[in-house]
């Protein structure tokens, strides 16, 4: 009896070793990086958020004081509100525009679509910093081409830099412009994967182009749409570089978004504890956004 069991146990030990040691060998580098650059900062940040740490010396625990201060800080509310406004504008636009263009590009009616695609890809080559510079140049109040054209057609000069809402609008335009190529890539790849026969069958049944888009393309694009919306909402919530180059969060501090607010308090004012508390609020917001979207995605899948 034992003679029979022994080899069985040895094999299972070997398999177990193979199932643990080998994958450990493959993942150990990622695990170290994950621990050092994700878990450690997250734990440290949570600790700092309860201290008055200023980047040097010792950190003194202050309980929830940072969070209390944060929630009575009008600059913080302004940054949160500005970030949410920005996301609410950028995400739908950054979804609809690439979807529309990709449907036209992949569809049977567009001539020279390959060449057009290259033109749409130009912003992909441009970093957020340079994209910000380009749009700053376009929207310059007294020298930009946009105001030049507007004054030519009789609308007159518009204060793109000194009005905080218009200034945010320029950031939205720049973000949709710069983000198009990547989302276009996602949509076009997904659209090309839809079998042509679906559309042919729909055509025989007399379905209009709009109907075909609504009943074939859109439902089959769902996983991609979910991905695009999730990635662009996260991207919008942590926007920084583009704003830095376009208007520096101005005029004044009216267009500070969350990451810039954290950067400003943490690195320019050295309030590390306070900035860490703000970081955790942003983290919770991101998590809530992601969870809501996963939830909606799952529900529509069932329904």
């Amino acid at each position, binding site marked *: 009896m034992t003679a029979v069991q022994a080899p069985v146990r040895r094999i299972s030990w070997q398999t177990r070793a193979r*199932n*643990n040691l*080998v*994958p450990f060998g*493959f*993942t150990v580098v*990622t695990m170290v*990086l*994950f621990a050092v*650059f*994700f878990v*450690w*900062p997250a734990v440290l*940040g949570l600790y700092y958020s309860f201290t008055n740490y200023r980047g040097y010396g010792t950190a003194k625990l202050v309980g929830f004081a940072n969070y209390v201060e944060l929630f009575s800080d009008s600059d913080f509310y302004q940054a949160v509100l500005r970030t949410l406004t920005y996301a609410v504008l950028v995400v739908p636009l950054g979804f609809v525009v690439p979807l529309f*263009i990709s449907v036209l590009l992949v*569809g049977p*009616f*567009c*001539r020279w*679509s390959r060449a*057009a695609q290259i*033109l*749409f*890809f130009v*912003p*992909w*080559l*441009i*970093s*957020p*910093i*340079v994209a910000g*510079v*380009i*749009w*700053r*140049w376009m929207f310059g109040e007294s*020298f930009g*081409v946009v105001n*030049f054209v507007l004054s*030519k057609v009789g609308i007159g000069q518009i204060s793109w830099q000194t009005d905080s809402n218009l200034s945010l609008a320029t950031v939205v335009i720049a973000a949709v*412009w710069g983000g198009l190529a990547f989302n276009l*890539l996602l949509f076009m*790849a997904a659209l090309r994967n839809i079998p042509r026969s679906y559309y042919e069958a729909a055509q025989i049944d007399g379905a209009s182009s709009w109907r075909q888009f609504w009943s074939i393309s859109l439902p089959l694009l769902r*996983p*991609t749409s979910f*991905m695009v919306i999730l990635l662009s909402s*996260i991207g919008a919530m*942590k926007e920084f*570089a583009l704003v830095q*180059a376009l208007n520096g969060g101005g005029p004044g501090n009216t267009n500070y978004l*969350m*990451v810039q607010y*954290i*950067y400003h308090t*943490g690195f320019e004012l050295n309030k*590390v504890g306070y900035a860490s508390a703000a*970081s955790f609020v942003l*983290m919770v917001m*991101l998590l809530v956004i992601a969870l809501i979207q996963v939830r909606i995605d799952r529900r529509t899948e069932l329904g």
Partner: protein
Amino acid sequence: MGDVSGERRLRRRRTTSRSLATTIVTAIVWLLACAWMFPALWFLLSSFKPGSELFSYPLTLFPKHWTFSGYVTAWERFSFARYVLNTSVVAVVTTFLTVIVSAATGYAFARYTNWWLRWFFVGILITTMLPTEVIMPSTFRVILDLGLYNSLAGIILPSVMTATGVFMFRQYFSTVPSELAEAARIDGAGEFKIFWQIMLPLARPIAATLAIFSFHWRWNDYIWPLIVLNDPKNYTLQVALRSIVGVDNINWSVLLSASIISLIPMVALFIAFSPQIMNANMNSGLKD
């Protein structure tokens, strides 16, 4: 007879409506494409205008006097060669490490199952939703403690791990039949040898796609270099550019040409790899 002509008329109507649709769609697409191109084109052409022409109304699309003076000043005043070198080192080294590390991790996720791998996968998933940008102040402390402050390694190491890369490889390796590995195992090949000599070469297309995108991300990175690098000698291009925009009185002539110079490497990359870039199916990595 009537039947035939009716059918012909119908077919003709269908071809005219088809060609009408083609005309309209093509017009819309090209109008949009030109609009999309315009800001970049305007910027490029402006960079060849002399300083006096930049701000004098009426503006013209093409410079009245073409000049490279902005480029000359930018090249003389900023150590571009240095910034390009720094950025290239960061982008190339990070990309190389990212591809190897993502491939190994993705392979493990595709081939093996056990409880801690499952948890680790969830951990990786969370990093996409909670990017390290949001915990900058404490990550900066970690960088300081590790002695990576003001060094290129300080921006390379934190960005090696990318969830997207891991997911792309996991997705790909889970489509490779396991018989392939079994056969090699019977021939006496070890697990790591199987990965290195059979699996990694198989995944070359995925590696290429990830390499291109990783290079692109790292070339454009801004926030980490800004925080970690202190000495202008170590600046990457993006941080150096920002130092021109950040001042109160922007020298537009220099800024325009400096920005254009910073784009040249990406344009070259795009020209070299445009088929791979435009046909890249990023869905595979991002979907699950």
